[in-house]
């Protein structure tokens, strides 16, 4: 099987090299047969990498520890779901996932554009195959997922327990889909720049892929945040870590692009800006992939092989040099057809939105890479912390949310006083009412959060007003019910109203961030059973300890779960019962002894969480298993029980757990009472829903495609005559 996998990678590399040559030769010579062959090379690449990925997945599911990757990242005791997902927890497997997703998305875009943009697609194919070839070459020469050894060990090391969370299993495919989709607009931009076909058509072809990239990246980021909140035992969801920032930067430039594309489509403006944003987003996606593999920056995340750094630096340097060169060479063709008529117009608001988004990206880029910058300038590595990031990102986020309310209601070209009065009165009133109500409720002590709540109220009111006006107009035209008018309105203008829904989702998400970071109560305390503590308005009582042997409630494969039963009350009334636990996993490390290895792996918190629309109560426990009383079980067991009797070893662990239940030592607890955390996930879901609506093809487009699949599109593709 491993030989088949290696053969697939070699074949994939050959396909990429052939496809690049065929595409470029076809484009230069005008021979369509070569161009078509280059496009088919992408389809072939997708087929071969699908087979390679299936081989790796099969090895994980069969627990074939002859594969180095399987032995290092899975084990017999790893639950089946996590075995399947462990394939991309390794450096090698993640590279294969990246290349595989790239080939699938590239196949999709080249299939959809097979009769369009005939000048541009050969070069886009070559660029996409270039990326495919790069990642395949990494797997062939640096980090192969199909390395084997013989004899195979009886068991593997197991998947890192921290990753055994559903969010973390879906997070990498989402993030990699976002990254790989971001290379598609980049490839088409390069093609458009080389051929000089810089009209709006290429932008139209890649717009959905840019939106899909943005959406997948957003989902990936949010799933990562959710994992951090639920799994890492610190109760936070964002820490300005370089790995987090790496995925946020292309998302920000992608957001800017999705707005500025509209100005080029409607007014023929911002061509240089748009093509630069496309190139920057694609390059930042590659940089994000590089950052987690290079080890160039200190991060809370550990990094693997740093040998991949040099090839990535070469790729990124080439991308930046080629991008700058192409844009400069085509600057005459990239001149705007119109100019900004007024600073009080939708175009101006979009430009301001772009400036803020790119400014945010620059701040994050600077802060993330500051250790390298400071080392280059002063000779000493230094880094900036979360307060530095907050100092800049908080005001910029406020402006961004406010602009997301102004954008939908301000007029194109030039807004008049009458327009402003008609469109801004209700949203401004909503913001003022929110200000008065929240200040009256005593929230004025946190002006940043208060400002965010008011901006969000402004956005929601502005969008609601747009929906209401649209529904009313449709009801007047079609004489239908309000729900029917709403469905018809959104169905006929999916991009517009999907975008409005996204704005509401972003506002809701930021309200959650502002509230949970400004008004949370936190407590770290050591408690014995029966003792209580206060967390904000809540009282928490440690009722009794708990222990589960081989019955891990979270089904993550923990051998032992030690926890607590907590009674949470507010003003004397029962609120919830929480059962935070800490999972202890088998390290599979014989040096820890025949008993010690059962609980010698990475311990992981399984938080006790009561989530509600207004407040989350979060708890984590760190039981003390290092007492001499408990450790005696391990040391005696290690001395007396042989490795070949694992059942007896587990019995000793069971006795130790029973001893803990009978004589529990004080446990360390971490409690958080955070308002509106649920709004962050809810906002993410709203954004996801709006994104799907905006992404879905409108009925008119589908009808047009179905009725005239070929003749209508033929003239668009006649960029270059076919050779016989």
């Amino acid at each position: 099987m491993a030989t088949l996998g290696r053969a697939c990678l070699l074949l994939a590399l050959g396909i990429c090299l052939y496809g690049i040559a065929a595409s470029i030769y076809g484009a230069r010579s005008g021979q369509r047969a070569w161009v078509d062959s280059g496009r088919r090379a992408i389809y072939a690449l997708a087929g071969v990498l699908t087979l390679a990925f299936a081989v790796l997945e099969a090895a994980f599911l069969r627990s074939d520890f002859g594969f180095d990757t399987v032995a290092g990242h899975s084990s017999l005791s790893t639950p089946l779901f996590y075995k399947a997902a462990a394939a991309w927890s390794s450096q090698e497997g993640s590279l294969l996932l990246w290349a595989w997703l790239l080939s699938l998305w590239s196949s999709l875009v080249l299939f959809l554009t097979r009769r369009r943009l005939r000048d541009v697609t050969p070069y886009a194919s070559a660029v996409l195959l270039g990326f495919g070839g790069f990642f395949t070459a990494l797997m062939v020469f640096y980090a192969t997922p199909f390395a084997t050894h013989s004899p195979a060990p009886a068991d593997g090391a197991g998947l890192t327990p921290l990753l055994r969370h559903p969010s973390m299993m879906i997070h990498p495919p989402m993030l990699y889909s976002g990254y790989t989709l971001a290379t598609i607009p980049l490839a088409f931009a390069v093609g458009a720049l080389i051929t000089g076909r810089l009209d709006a058509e290429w932008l139209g072809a890649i717009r959905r892929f840019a939106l899909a990239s943005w959406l997948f990246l957003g989902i990936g980021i949010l799933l990562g945040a959710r994992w951090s909140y639920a799994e890492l035992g610190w109760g936070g969801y964002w820490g300005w870590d370089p790995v987090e920032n790496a995925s946020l930067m292309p998302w920000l430039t992608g957001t800017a692009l999705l707005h500025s594309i509209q100005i080029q489509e409607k007014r023929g403006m911002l061509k240089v800006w748009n093509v630069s944003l496309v190139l920057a987003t694609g390059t930042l996606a590659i940089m994000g992939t590089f950052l987690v593999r290079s080890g160039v920056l200190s991060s809370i995340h550990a990094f693997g092989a740093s040998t991949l750094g040099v090839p990535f630096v070469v790729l990124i340097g080439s991308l930046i040099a080629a991008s700058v060169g192409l844009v400069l060479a085509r600057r005459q063709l990239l001149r705007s057809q119109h100019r900004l008529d007024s600073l009080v117009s939708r175009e101006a608001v979009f430009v301001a939105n772009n400036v803020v988004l790119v400014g945010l990206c620059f701040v994050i880029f600077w802060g993330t890479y500051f250790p390298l910058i400071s080392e280059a300038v002063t000779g000493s590595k230094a880094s900036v912390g979360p307060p530095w990031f907050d100092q800049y990102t908080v005001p910029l986020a406020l402006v961004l949310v406010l602009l997301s309310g102004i954008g939908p209601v301000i007029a194109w070209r030039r807004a008049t006083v009458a327009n402003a009065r008609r469109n801004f009165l209700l949203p401004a009133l909503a913001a003022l009412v929110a200000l008065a109500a929240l200040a009256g409720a005593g929230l004025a002590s946190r002006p940043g959060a208060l400002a965010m709540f008011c901006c969000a109220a402004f956005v929601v009111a502005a969008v609601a007003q747009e929906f209401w006006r649209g529904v009313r107009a449709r009801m007047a035209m079609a004489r239908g019910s309000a729900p029917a008018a709403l469905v018809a309105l959104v169905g006929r203008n999916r991009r517009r109203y999907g975008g409005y829904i996204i704005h509401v989702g972003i506002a809701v998400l930021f309200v959650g961030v502002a509230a949970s970071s400004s008004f949370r109560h936190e407590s770290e305390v050591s408690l014995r059973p029966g003792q209580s503590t206060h967390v904000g308005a809540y009282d928490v009582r440690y009722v009794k300890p708990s222990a589960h042997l081989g019955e891990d409630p979270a089904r993550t494969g923990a051998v032992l779960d030690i926890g607590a039963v907590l009674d949470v009350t507010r003003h004397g009334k029962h609120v919830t019962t929480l059962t935070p636990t800490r999972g202890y996993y088998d390290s599979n490390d014989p040096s820890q002894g025949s008993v010690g290895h059962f609980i010698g792996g990475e311990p992981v918190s399984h938080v006790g969480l009561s989530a509600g629309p207004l407040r989350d109560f979060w708890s984590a426990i760190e039981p003390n298993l290092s007492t001499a009383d408990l450790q005696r079980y391990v040391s005696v067991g290690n001395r007396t029980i042989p490795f070949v009797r694992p059942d007896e070893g587990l019995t000793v662990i069971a006795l130790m757990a029973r001893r803990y239940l009978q004589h529990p030592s004080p446990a360390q607890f971490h409690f958080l009472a955070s308002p509106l955390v649920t709004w962050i996930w809810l906002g993410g879901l709203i954004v996801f829903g709006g994104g799907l609506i905006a992404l879905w093809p409108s009925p008119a487009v589908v009808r047009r495609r179905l009725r005239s699949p070929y003749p209508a599109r033929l003239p668009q593709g006649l960029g270059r005559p076919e050779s016989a």
Partner: protein
Amino acid sequence: MDPGRKRRLRLFTALAAALVLASALIYTSFTAASPARSPSQLLASAQPGQSYQLTGKVVAGSIQRQGQVLDFRVRDRNGPSSVAVHYAGTVPDPFRAGREVIVSVRRQGGSFVGERDSLVTKCPSKFSTAPRPNR
């Protein structure tokens, strides 16, 4: 006003604003940054009151919790030099002996006091391979 002049004025204003903001960004990043130091570097040159980002590995057997306070030693990644850290605040799950940590510290006498909630532990969540069992 002449439209061309108006455009130039806008461009100049925008560029000036961008320059001011970029200068502020650069200035604050250099003044707010904490230099990253290993234990041996801290032992050699740490100034009292100055904040440093201590990076290194937690020394086995050095972890002691007393109520809310955690005492432990951090050593060089590839060397025996170590410093004592006195820390209060959130302790990440992956914190344990041998794990690589980053913590903001200030020198107080012979030991170093960690800033509250500044302890971060490198979590093996990205592509790190666990040692393969031999049995």
